């Protein structure tokens, strides 16, 4: 009898051990290692969004953020393809990890039948997102763009990309002028500085910053194309009105010189400090966050942390307005212009899938199908609302079919510390996401992102901004620049992978890094000689780069039209 009892008990015990296996077979908890190709903040352990992800998908994340140089970090990671982070975001050098064979082809998992959400997400832009492997000829997609696959008509409430930025207080001090040219821009900053050399605390203002650290050298290089009236094509100027899309690097062209001449003059006047050329990105953000930098050329997302810090501190007058500056007619002599070129301000263009930016799944990941299934489910409305808006009732509310936030709730979303408890930034920023308009369901007509929703853009705008826009008679900050033009058929040329000419490209970058700051800092007599020496030094690599880019642009155009 005793024996029987013990046998029964043993069986019961064994049975109870098996139960969890039966129930949770598909959801065996796993921890994914995640690498982000940019610096960031670790979320706190109690983060509510990550908790929900763990509950529904059984997936936890272990984040690693970039610390140090991106290319070197990626180069080191690529030395061991067996031990890569599961979710791998190569940041601005994702081409390296793609070419390095670190990522799996997502098309092995994504198709109209198994993953209808993901397929519908990429379908409208599939000519751009899906490419052909040069060697095997098969269709490949390694990364679902993290941004730019938007639903519905384009929303342009603010300038998220490149522009010349100026502190609002400078415009207010100048009597809310319209600024369209370099001369007007620097003239206003000079006059402001002359009267206000320091802020209220006695810290001296910095007139104009030029960030040059590593790949952020674009702040020094890129402005010329915009002054010529084009949206961001990176380091080349493309004439989209001509049939064969003439493409050339602009940094070595005569029409680039007036800009650097202007910077040289401003340097002589002390508007630009020499320290700007030895500044790290962290020092730059710290300087911007303290509200002492009056102007700079940059992209709005690049200094988003500084903007948030200024808003948190209530320094609204120190936040920035994006201006679309262009060359004035007499800035560039007619003979220096490309043939048939007309300057019209176009800083904005149609939304563009952020190709090859975002998470890829690495070849060493043990469970790609679970990540795909998670992303597929996350494109559903409830998850998108959770990521973008938060928890209903807690972070936002729905009134008469409209999504709204109170002023306090919205202020929270801008607070970096709050985000670490309540937002899944590190994961969501690099994951596929819906943007633009909500097109179906009860919430039709709302925006996916709180920052685009009318109620928030206008309703929760701080009084300073309302008053500020009122002086101009504008309703939104995007009104400072022209409305977006149609996206060029090749997309934006900065996205083109430069690996095939990487050594020449590295020369191109090195020569700019070493010589261009010296050109800007040259004494007025020396300027012409230094500029000529710079152009001569960079010409060989420019030629290789221009020719390569032209070929690639033509290939992209052909692919876009499905040829």
């Amino acid at each position, binding site marked *: 009898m005793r024996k029987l009892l013990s046998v029964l008990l043993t069986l019961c015990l064994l049975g109870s051990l098996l139960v969890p296996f039966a129930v949770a077979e598909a959801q065996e908890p796993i921890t994914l290692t995640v690498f982000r190709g940019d610096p960031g903040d670790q979320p706190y352990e109690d983060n509510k969004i990550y908790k929900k992800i763990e509950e529904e998908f059984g997936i936890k994340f272990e984040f690693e953020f970039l610390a140090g140089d991106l*290319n070197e970090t990626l180069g080191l990671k690529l030395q061991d393809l067996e031990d890569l982070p599961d979710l791998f975001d190569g940041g601005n050098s994702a081409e390296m990890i793609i*070419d390095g*064979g670190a990522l799996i082809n997502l098309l092995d998992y994504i198709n109209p039948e198994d993953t209808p959400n993901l397929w519908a997400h990429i379908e409208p832009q599939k000519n751009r997102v899906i490419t052909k492997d040069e060697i095997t000829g098969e269709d490949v997609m390694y990364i679902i763009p993290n941004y730019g696959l938007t639903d519905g008509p384009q929303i342009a409430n603010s300038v998220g990309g490149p522009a010349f930025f100026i502190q609002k207080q400078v415009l207010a001090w100048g009597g809310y002028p319209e600024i369209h040219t370099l001369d007007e821009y620097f003239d206003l900053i000079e006059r402001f500085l002359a009267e206000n050399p320091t802020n209220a605390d006695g810290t001296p203002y910095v007139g104009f910053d030029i960030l*040059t650290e590593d790949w952020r050298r674009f702040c020094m290089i890129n402005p010329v194309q915009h002054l010529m009236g084009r949206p961001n094509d990176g380091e080349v100027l493309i004439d989209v009105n001509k049939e064969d899309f003439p493409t050339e690097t602009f940094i070595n062209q005569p029409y680039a010189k007036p800009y650097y001449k202007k910077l040289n003059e401003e340097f002589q006047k002390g508007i630009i400090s020499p*320290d700007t050329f030895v500044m790290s990105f962290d020092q730059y953000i710290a300087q911007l966050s303290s509200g002492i930098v009056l102007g700079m050329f940059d992209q709005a997302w690049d200094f988003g942390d500084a903007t948030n810090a200024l808003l948190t501190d209530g320094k609204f007058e120190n936040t920035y307005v994006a201006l679309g500056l262009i060359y004035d007619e007499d800035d560039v002599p007619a003979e220096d212009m490309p043939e048939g070129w007309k300057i019209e301000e176009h800083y904005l263009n149609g939304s563009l899938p952020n190709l090859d930016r975002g998470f890829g799944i690495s070849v060493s990941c043990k469970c790609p199908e679970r990540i795909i299934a998670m992303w597929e489910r996350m494109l559903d409305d409830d998850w998108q609302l959770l990521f973008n808006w938060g928890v209903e009732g807690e972070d936002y509310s729905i009134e008469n079919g409209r999504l709204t936030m109170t002023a306090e709730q919205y202020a929270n979303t801008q607070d970096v510390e709050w985000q670490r408890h309540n937002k899944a930034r590190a994961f969501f920023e690099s994951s596929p996401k819906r943007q633009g308009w909500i097109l179906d369901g009860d919430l039709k007509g709302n925006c996916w992102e709180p920052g685009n929703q009318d109620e928030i853009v206008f309703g929760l705008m701080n009084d300073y901004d309302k008053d500020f826009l009122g002086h101009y008679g504008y309703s939104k900050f995007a009104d400072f620049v022209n409305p977006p033009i149609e996206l060029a058929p090749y997309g934006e040329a900065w996205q083109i992978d430069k690996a095939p000419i990487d050594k020449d490209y*590295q020369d191109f970058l090195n020569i700019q890094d070493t010589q261009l700051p010296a050109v800007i800092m040259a004494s007025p007599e020396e300027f012409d000689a230094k500029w000529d020496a710079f152009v001569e030094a960079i010409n060989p690599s420019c030629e290789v780069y221009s020719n390569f880019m032209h070929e690639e642009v033509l290939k992209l155009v052909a692919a876009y039209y499905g040829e």
Partner: protein
Amino acid sequence: MTDMTKGSTRYYMPRKKGFFARLASQWQLALMSVPILMYVFLFNYVPMWGWINAFRDYGNRKLVARGITPFNGLDNFKWLFSRPDFYQTIRNTLAMSLINLVLGTFSAILLAVLLNEVRQKTFKRTVQTVTYLPHFLSMVIVVAMAQNIFASTGPVNELLTKLGIMKNPIFWLGEGKYFWGLVGVINVWKEVGWGTIIYISAMTSIDPALYEAASIDGAGRFQKILHVTLPGIKSTFVILLIMNIGHLMEAGFEIQYLLGNGLTADFSRTIDIFVLEYGTSLMDFGVATAAGIFKSVVAIILLVGANFISKRLGEDTLV
């Protein structure tokens, strides 16, 4: 065994036994050296297989990802030596190494001699601790501090302008001509205390009787330093010098990488940084390995050369 030639009898020492017989008689010692030999073999010889990559083409990443890296003879070396800026990086590397070697050695000896003369124990120990603590700081922190100290509005410039030595602040961090000097100064600050340790220990091993004898002969303090202390550490100095000459191709990488910027690049880029920019970070391991081989060869030549000269001068040698 005897040798009967020339009619004389010579007795050989028993060590003329065969190699293996001798090895067998010392088997315990031989056994103890096995782990060390394995370590050296595994970590110093096995990786040399990687040198083969210097003769491979890593130019096309897409092919590399598929494991296709054809041999390309000496193309990687040719590419390296065809670039004028590679020679510039060699110059920078050697210049900064030499500056570090000379400044580092002399500042360490100077401090060690001074400390040796200090009779007050607490003071001596405090100075020693304070000077060697920076050795444990990460270079990232040291450079960040230097960037603040030498900024155009930093304390150094403030001091110089307030004292009236300079009219305008000097742009220390942005002018190439100051870069080597800055690196030297920072390295001395960071490593001087660490460098003294070995010299101080060498000085403690000098026989006190020598000092007493010198005193009796009427030597003053400076003469004792000159004729007893310095000769006493000469052999340590020579050995360290030879070892450091072998490291001349390593000017350090962190400090130049962190402190350098576009403006100073012509003076700050070392071979290591060049390899990083055009090799590792472009995933061209062929070029990176070729540069590594070049560095090793130069280092071996320098080391053997220094050793040879030292032998000729009748000093201690490494081998």
